């Protein structure tokens, strides 16, 4: 199945070349993959992802993905 991915802040370095900030890139994953599988597929070091969104909702690493989901990953960020 295909899912869309967006990477932000220090996670930008895991994005494919030419991918712009805020732009979605597609990833092909086996059926029944969870967020944790996607993080592993992208070779993101463990612990670097602090918050994961699926279609605008924060979800845990165990969340089951489905075709067409849009996933956003953030490292620890703060501000105000």
């Amino acid at each position, binding site marked *: 199945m295909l899912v869309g991915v*967006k990477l*932000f*802040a*220090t996670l*930008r370095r895991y994005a494919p070349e030419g991918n*712009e*900030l*805020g*732009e979605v890139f597609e990833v092909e994953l086996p059926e029944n993959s969870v967020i944790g599988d996607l993080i592993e597929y992208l070779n993101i070091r463990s612990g670097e992802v*602090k*918050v994961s*969104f699926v279609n*605008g*909702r*924060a979800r845990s690493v165990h969340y089951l993905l489905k075709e067409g989901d849009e996933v*956003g990953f*953030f*490292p*620890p*960020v*703060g*501000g*105000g």
Partner: protein
Amino acid sequence: MWILRLNMTDRSYKFEDVPESYAMLGGRGLTSTIIYDEVDPTCHPLGPNNKLVFAPGIVTGAASPTSARLSVGGKSPLTGGIKESNAGTSFAPAMAKMRLKAVIVEGKPEQSGEYWTVMISWEGDKPKVEFMPADEYTGKDLYEVFPQIYERFGKKIHVCGVGTAGEFGYANSGIAFNDMKKRPTRYSGRGGLGAVMGSKGLKFLLLNAEGAPGVEYADQEAFKVAAKKLQVALNEHAITKPKGGLNSYGTAVLVNILNEAGGFPTRNFRTGRFEGAAKIAGEAIFETNKKRTGKEVYNHACSPGCVIQCSNTLYSESGDEIVSCIEYESAWALGADCGIDDLDAIGELVRLCNAYGLDTIETGVSIGVAMDSGMIPFGDVKGAINLVHEMGKGTPMGRLLGGGTGMVGKALGNPRIPAVKGQGMPAYEPRAVKGIGVTYATSTMGADHTAGYTIAPEMLSVGGTSDPLASDVAKADLSRAFQMTTAFLDSTGHCLFIAFAILDIPSGFEGMVEEVNAMLGVELTNDSAVALGGEILKRERAFNEAAGLTKVDDRLPEFMKYEPLPPHNVVSDLPDEVFDKVYGEM
């Protein structure tokens, strides 16, 4: 230590000993207590009976990281209630080192239009006070005037002043303080305190701390141990550490995460996502600077002794400085909320706000309401720049816009007024982030994100997690806990951003409390420190009640109940009892 009173009616002054009852107070706790004790809550904010109080925090000026905050308090011309607005600036530790626990500005000149500079310097064994006419500095750009002040009074001074917005008495005017490069860019921005200072004919308050003795510790050794605990936490946490999130991308690193969550207010709070978000985010500022200067530019400190260093600078194509600093709130208010996705234009708008002495949040939100009412289209960069010039120059239109979000909505007949107690909302959509909505509604300050920053658990997974979209009664408890802790933190003189580290690292929180103990010779526990924060809030609320604010003022705007917010299509649906529970169970 002293409390210094400046009487602007006859330009006299008086040093007083600090009363016993104020010994444990500093920063917000002290400004709010003095306002509560001395100001008639029914007075006009710009009349002779309001007072303006300056107070550094309890540990400000001591050897402690990220602690150079200065609180300014008064009755707000924007909300009609009590106001405390704090800034990070070298002015704060300078004041503490001169052993000035507070400066209280009273009265006003009988002749309106008279402006004065007050210089406080150290002479012999105590501060010396001089009043000088300041009329020559009025009506001008603060970027032009600050260098003249340094030229005249010397490079070692610390500067606080108001721009034309304060002179005109705008409810959206702030008080400007110098940053580390002597620019007029650090603001006690919210609530119109610039107008209170302007109404008193006080154009500049200057400090020269040369020769001052420095702060006094009850137990300096214990203080060192406590400050070290806090320092370790700040250096360890991913958000606050050097080259961490804040140091690399600044506060505008939040743009994308709020946008992703559908909680990024766009075009006067019509939607929760902005298609141009990525262009105005902290990452975009970092990449733009890298492209334009040929190197990675990390952020700088707004004030001495800060280890977080989150203040950015935006550079132009030619490598010149456009402005410092573009905060998250400013990028949003003058960007997404106005439908503007041009980073250079936002930089110019921030620069103009600094030049005229305007609060970037209130100014942006007011322009957003004007755009939503058809005065100019959303996304109209030239139109927005022109409106800021109108404010700064005091045209009839500018004077109306300077009245703030509520005034603009009323004048233009628009029910979509994103404000609480008249104060424009900051950059988090309360329909999509329920806890911050409770803070906006119930804070003694009007809509203020810093008053109880539930964004930490609701968005950032800091200090636990809380589902932002859950319309849950527990949001009252969450907001209350944050508001109480913040009232204490705002009294210590630390920047609110230490919260990211100390909410996750318990020894950092202990360090903060133990610093206060070592400074004052008291024995607060974590719990009693938070309870002290609660006492401060109750005093602020009592002032507001006496000023005429009721629980009906502790509500979100009505339009948020009937206009669903995309992309989650959520409305404001917390029952009134949730808002009332915040103070009801404090």
